[in-house]
C-alpha cells in the first residue's frame, strides 16, 4: 500500500491537499446547497451529505498520510515547501512527525464521524454550516502540519472564526455571548503570541519563519521567559487551563455538537509540545514557571472535577471534566519526564476521542429531548440501552477506568510525574476519586432512576448513530487494551521534547550538538 501511495507521489501532495481540499470545497458546499432557515433536508441536495462526502475524502487523505508515513524515519515527513511571502521569508512549509501525525489522523477521521453522529443537530442553513465546518477542518489540520510559524498562526486564527460563527449561529442558549467570550479570550493569548512570533522571527534575522530555523535562534533566558509567556498564554487559554477556563463551559455548553467536539481537541497542548517547549526550553525549565504551571495543573485537575460534580447541564459537565483532564495533561507535560510527556500526548489523543464521544452522545440526547439538563433525563438505560451502554463506556473512559483508553495516558502521566513531583502528583491522584464522583453522578442522574413521566421516551441509536458510536466505542476499548501502535511512536516524540527542554539550543544546560546561530 505504501509503495503504491509513494508511486503516485502522495508524500508530496497529501499535506497541501489536506488543507486545500476543504478550503476549496467550502464555497462549493455553500453555493450548491440552498441556505434556508427552515429544515433544509426537505428540498434540494442536502448540504450535509455533501459536507460529509467532502469530509470523508479528507479522512481518506488523512489515511493516505498515515500510509505514506515511515515510522522508522526521523524528522519531518511528507514535506511540502513553496515560497509564499518572499519579503518576510514566510513559506508554505508543511510536514508531519510522530507528534502531529496521530492528531491529524484523529481530526480527519473525527470530523466526518462527528458530522454523521450529529446529523440532526443542525438542520437549518446547512450549506453555510458545512462550509464553515470545512474551513474549521482546514484550520485544525493547518495548525497541526504547519512548520512555518506565520502559516501556523494563520491556521490558528482560521480555527477561531468558523468556530465563532458555528457557535454563534447554530448554538443554543446564550450562544452569542459565549462565542464572543471565546473569541476575546482566545485573541488575548493569540495576539500576544503573534508579537512573540514577530520577536522570534526578528531575532532569527527576519529571514524565515520555519520552525527548524527558529529553533536555532539564540535567545537569552530572560527573552525566552517573555516569549514563552506569550506562547503559553495563547495555548493555555485555548486549551482552557484554570484560571483561563471560564469560556470553555459557556462555549461548549451552547455550541452545536460538532463545534463542541472540535473545541475538545486540544490543539493548545499540541502547540505547547511543538512550539512553546522546544523553542523556549530555558523558560519551560525555569523553576518558578514550571512550579506555577504544575500547581495550576493540579488545581485544574481537582477544580475541574469538583465543578463537574455540581453541574446540572450535561454539556457543561463534560466541559468541566475536560478542564480536569487538561490539568492532567499539563501536569504530564511540564514535569518533563519522557514517560509523563508520552502519557500526556497519548492522553491528548484519547481525550479527543472520549470527549467527542461524550459530546456526540449528549448532542443526540439534546436533539431527542431538547434539553441537556440532567434533571430532564433519567432511566435512560431502560429506554435506550445501546446509547446508554456507550455513554457509560465513554464516562468510564473519562474517569480513566483501566481497560479503557483514558486509563493508559493517565497512568503514564502520573507514573512519570511522580518521580519528579511526588507531592503534587499525589494530590493530582485524588482527582481519580473526584472523577468517580462526577462520572457516576451523571450516570446516576441520566441513565438510572426513572424517566420523567411527562417526556416521551427517548429513542435508541439509529443505525447511522450506531455505526458512529460503535466506532468510538471500539476505539476507546482498543486504545485501552492495545494502545501500542499509537503509543510506541510517541516514545520518540516524548524523548525529543524532553531532550529539547533539557539540551536544546536554548536550554539552560546548553546544547549538546554544535548547532550554530545563523
Amino acid at each position: 500500500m505504501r509503495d503504491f501511495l509513494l508511486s503516485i507521489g502522495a508524500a508530496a501532495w497529501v499535506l497541501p491537499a489536506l488543507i486545500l481540499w476543504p478550503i476549496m470545497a467550502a464555497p462549493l458546499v455553500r453555493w450548491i446547497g440552498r441556505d434556508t432557515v427552515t429544515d433544509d433536508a426537505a428540498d434540494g441536495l442536502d448540504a450535509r451529505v455533501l459536507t460529509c462526502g467532502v469530509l470523508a475524502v479528507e479522512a481518506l487523505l488523512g489515511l493516505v498520510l498515515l500510509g505514506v508515513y515511515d515510522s522508522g524515519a526521523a524528522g519531518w515527513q511528507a514535506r511540502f515547501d513553496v515560497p509564499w511571502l518572499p519579503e518576510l521569508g514566510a513559506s508554505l512549509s508543511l510536514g508531519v512527525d510522530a507528534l502531529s501525525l496521530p492528531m491529524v489522523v484523529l481530526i480527519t477521521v473525527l470530523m466526518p464521524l462527528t458530522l454523521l453522529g450529529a446529523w440532526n443537530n443542525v438542520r437549518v442553513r446547512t450549506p453555510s454550516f458545512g462550509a464553515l465546518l470545512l474551513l474549521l477542518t482546514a484550520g485544525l489540520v493547518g495548525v497541526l502540519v504547519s512548520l512555518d510559524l506565520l502559516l501556523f498562526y494563520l491556521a490558528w486564527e482560521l480555527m477561531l472564526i468558523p468556530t465563532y460563527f458555528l457557535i454563534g449561529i447554530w448554538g443554543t442558549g446564550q450562544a452569542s455571548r459565549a462565542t464572543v467570550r471565546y473569541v476575546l479570550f482566545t485573541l488575548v493569548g493569540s495576539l500576544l503570541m503573534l508579537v512573540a512570533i514577530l520577536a522570534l522571527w526578528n531575532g532569527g534575522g527576519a529571514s524565515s519563519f520555519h520552525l527548524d530555523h527558529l529553533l536555532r535562534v539564540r535567545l537569552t533566558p530572560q527573552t525566552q521567559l517573555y516569549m514563552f509567556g506569550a506562547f503559553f498564554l495563547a495555548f493555555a487559554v485555548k486549551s482552557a487551563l484554570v484560571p483561563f477556563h471560564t469560556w470553555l463551559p459557556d462555549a461548549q455548553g451552547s455550541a452545536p455538537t460538532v463545534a463542541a467536539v472540535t473545541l475538545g481537541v486540544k490543539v493548545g497542548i499540541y502547540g505547547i509540545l511543538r512550539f512553546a517547549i522546544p523553542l523556549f526550553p530555558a523558560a519551560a525549565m525555569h523553576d518558578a514557571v514550571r512550579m506555577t504551571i504544575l500547581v495550576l495543573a493540579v488545581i485544574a485537575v481537582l477544580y475541574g472535577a469538583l465543578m463537574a460534580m455540581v453541574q446540572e447541564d450535561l454539556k457543561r459537565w463534560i466541559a468541566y471534566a475536560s478542564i480536569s483532564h487538561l490539568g492532567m495533561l499539563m501536569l504530564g507535560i511540564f514535569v518533563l519526564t519522557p514517560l509523563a510527556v508520552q502519557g500526556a500526548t497519548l492522553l491528548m489523543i484519547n481525550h479527543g476521542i472520549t470527549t467527542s464521544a461524550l459530546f456526540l452522545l449528549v448532542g443526540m440526547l439534546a436533539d431527542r429531548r431538547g434539553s441537556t439538563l440532567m434533571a430532564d433525563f433519567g432511566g435512560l438505560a431502560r429506554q435506550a440501552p445501546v446509547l446508554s451502554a456507550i455513554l457509560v463506556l465513554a464516562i468510564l473512559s473519562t474517569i480513566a477506568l483501566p481497560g479503557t483508553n483514558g486509563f493508559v495516558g493517565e497512568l503514564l502521566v502520573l507514573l512519570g510525574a511522580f518521580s519528579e513531583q511526588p507531592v503534587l502528583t499525589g494530590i493530582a491522584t485524588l482527582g481519580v476519586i473526584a472523577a468517580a464522583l462526577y462520572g457516576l453522578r451523571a450516570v446516576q442522574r441520566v441513565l438510572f432512576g426513572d424517566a420523567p413521566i411527562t417526556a416521551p421516551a427517548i429513542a435508541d441509536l439509529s443505525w447511522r448513530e450506531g455505526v458512529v458510536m460503535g466506532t468510538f466505542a471500539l476505539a476507546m476499548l482498543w486504545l485501552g487494551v492495545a494502545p501500542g501502535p499509537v503509543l510506541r511512536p510517541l516514545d520518540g516524540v516524548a524523548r525529543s521534547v524532553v531532550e529539547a527542554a533539557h539540551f536544546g539550543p536554548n536550554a539552560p544546560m546548553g546544547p549538546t550538538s554544535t548547532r550554530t546561530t545563523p
Partner: protein
Amino acid sequence: MSIVSALELATGAQAPAHVLSTTVAQYMWLLPVLPLLGAMGNGMIALGVGRARGEQVDATTARHPLVTLMGPGVLLASFALAIAIFVAMLGAGMSASAGLATPFILRLGSWIPAGALVIDWAFQLDQLSMLMVLVITGVGTLIHIFSVGYMRDDAGYARYFAYLNLFVAFMLVLVLGASYPVLFIGWEGVGLCSYLLISFWFRDAANVAAGTKAFVVNRIGDAGFLVAMFLMWRTTQHLDFAGAHAALLSQAGTPAVVAIALFLFIGCTGKSAQLPLYVWLPDAMAGPTPVSALIHAATMVTAGVYLVARAAPVFSGAPAISLLVTVVGALTALFAATIALRQWDIKKVLAYSTVSQLGYMFMAVGSGAYTAGVFHLVTHAFFKALLFLGAGSVIHAMHAAYHATHRHDDPQDLRNMGGLRRVMPVTAVTMGLATLAIAGVPPLAGFFSKDAILSAVFARASGSPLAQASLLGLSGQTILLGVYAVGMVTALFTAVYMGRLLLLAFFGENRTGSDAAAALHEAPGVMTIPVVLLAILTVAGGWLNLPELMPLGRPELLEHWLAPVTGASAARLAGTVPLAHGTEQGLILAAVVTAMLGLGIAFIAARRPITDKAHAAPDTGVSALLANAYHVDAGVDAVLVRPTQALASVALARGVEPGIDGLFSAVGNGLTAVAALVGRRVQDGDVGKYAWVIAAGAVLMLAALSLR
C-alpha cells in the same frame, strides 16, 4: 528459591522454558477470556432485547435460553480448564526436579509499551493464583447456577449474567495478572462490576446510591493503590511482580518499601472493606443476593487479602506496616462483629459478618501468616457464599410469598421470618452447617482456618521480627497479644450473631403473616443444589490445611502448596521458636469453648419475644449505637461528603468560578461602562468643551516637549 529465580528474571537472565509452558496451562488466558466472551454474548442479548422492546421488556423475553446456557456455561468451562491446569500443575510439581518454585508467566503481548516502561499483557500462574482461580471459578459456577433460579423472573436476566460474567473475567484478571497494572485492571474492573450489580435494580435511587458509594469508596483505596504503584516505579523501575518484588526485597525496611506497603494496604482497605473504608459493603447488599454471595463475600472483597499475600515480599519488608495490617484487621473484625449483633436485615448481618471475617484474614496476613489468611479466605468463600445463597433462598421465598399475597413487608427482615426450617429444610440444614462453621465449631472448615489465624497471631507475639517491631510506640508483642485477644472476643461475638440469625430465621414461631406463610416454599433444585454443594465444601474445606497436631489427614497441605509463593516472606516474619504443642492445644480448646459459649448466648437471647419492625421499641444506648452502625455513615456524611459537596457547589460553583469569570467580565463590562459614562460626559456635543480639551492637550504637549 523463588526469590532467587525472581531475581534472575528481573536481571534479564534468559530463564529456561517453564515446565508448564507446554501443558494445558498455556491456555490459561482462556480462563478470563471465556467469561468475557460470555459477558459480551449476554450483553449483546441484553442490549438487543432492550432495544427491541424498549420499556416493555418482561421476564419471559428477557430469559433468553441462550443466556441460561451461556451464563453459567462459560463459568463451568473456565472451572473445567482451571481443574485441568491444576492437574497439570500437580503433575509438573511431582515430575519437575525443582518443583514449581517459579511462577509460570504467560506473556500475551504488550499492553503499554512506553519507552522505559513496558507493561505486558502477562498472566502469572503460581500456587496462589491457581488457588484463587479454583475458588473463583468453582464458587462462581455454583453461584451462577443458583442465579438461574434466583433471577428467573427478572427483566434484567441477560444483563445480570453479562455483568456477572464480566465480573468473573475481571476477577480472574486480578488474580492472574503478572504485574501490578494488570492486577489493577481486574482490581478496578471488579469494582465496576460491583457497582453495576449493586445498582442492578437502578430504578430505585437507593440502590444506585449504594452502588455509587461502593465505587467511590473503592476509588479512594484505588488512589492509594495507584500511589503505591508510582512509588514502586520510582523505587525500582519495575511494575511486574517478579522484578518489583526482587528489587524491593533488596531494600527491605527502607522508607520507600514502608511507604509502598502502606499505600498498597490503603488500596486493600478500600477493596476489602476494612476500617475506615468498610462503609460501602453493608450498603452493597442492595444488589441481588447471589451477587452479594459472589462479589461481596467470596471473591472480590478478598482481593485485598490476595494482594497482601501477593505482595508478601513487600509487606514482609515493612514489619511496621504488617503490624498495622493486623491491627486494622483486628479492629475491623471486632467493630463489624459488634454491629452485626443488632442488625435485623438478614443480609446486613451477613455483610457485617463478612467485614468482620475479612478482618480476620487481615489479622493473618498482617502477622505474616499468609497461608492462614488465604486458608480463611477459601473457607470463608465456601461458608459465606453458602450463607448468602441460603439467605437468598430465604429472601426469594419470602419475596415470592409477599408477592403472591400482595403484601409490602420487608422480605429481608429477620423479624418477619422464624420457623422457616419447616418449609425450607434444605436451606435450614445447610445454613446451620455454615453457621457452625463460621462460629468456629470443629470440625467444620471455619474452625480450622480461624484457629490457624489466632494461633499464628499468638505464636508471633514472641520472638518474631514482628514482635520486635513497633507501631505508634507500642511494641509488636503487646499489639499482637492485643490482636489475639480481640480475635477471641470477636469469635465470641461471631458465634452470638450467627446463632441469633439462624435462630431468628429458621426456628421459633413463624412471623411472616398467616396468609403469606402459606405461600412460603423451598427453593427450586437449581438453587438448592449449589447450596448443598457449598455445604459439602464447608464441611470438608478444613482438610485443606489441617494443623499438625490433629492427625485427621495429611497436615498443612495448603501451607506446602503456597510455600513457593509466600513461604519465604512468611518465614521472614515468623518467630524462631515454634509454638509448644501444649500451648497450641490450649488455644484450640479456648477457641472451641468460645464458640460454644457464643452459640449458647445466642440461644438464650433468642428466647426473648420478637416484635415486628413497626411495633418495636426504639433502641437505646449501646443497642442504638450498634443498630445504627456507630453512626459512621452519618459521621462520614457530615465530615467528608457534605463539606466536599459544599465546597464544590457553594465555594467553587458559586464563589470561585463566578469570581474568576467575573474578573474577566468585569474588565470588559468596566471598560464599556467607563466608555459610556465618559463618552456621555465628554462627548456631549459642546464645541466649547471640545476646544477646551484640545487646548489643554496642547498645553500638555508643549509642557512635555519643553519642560525637560
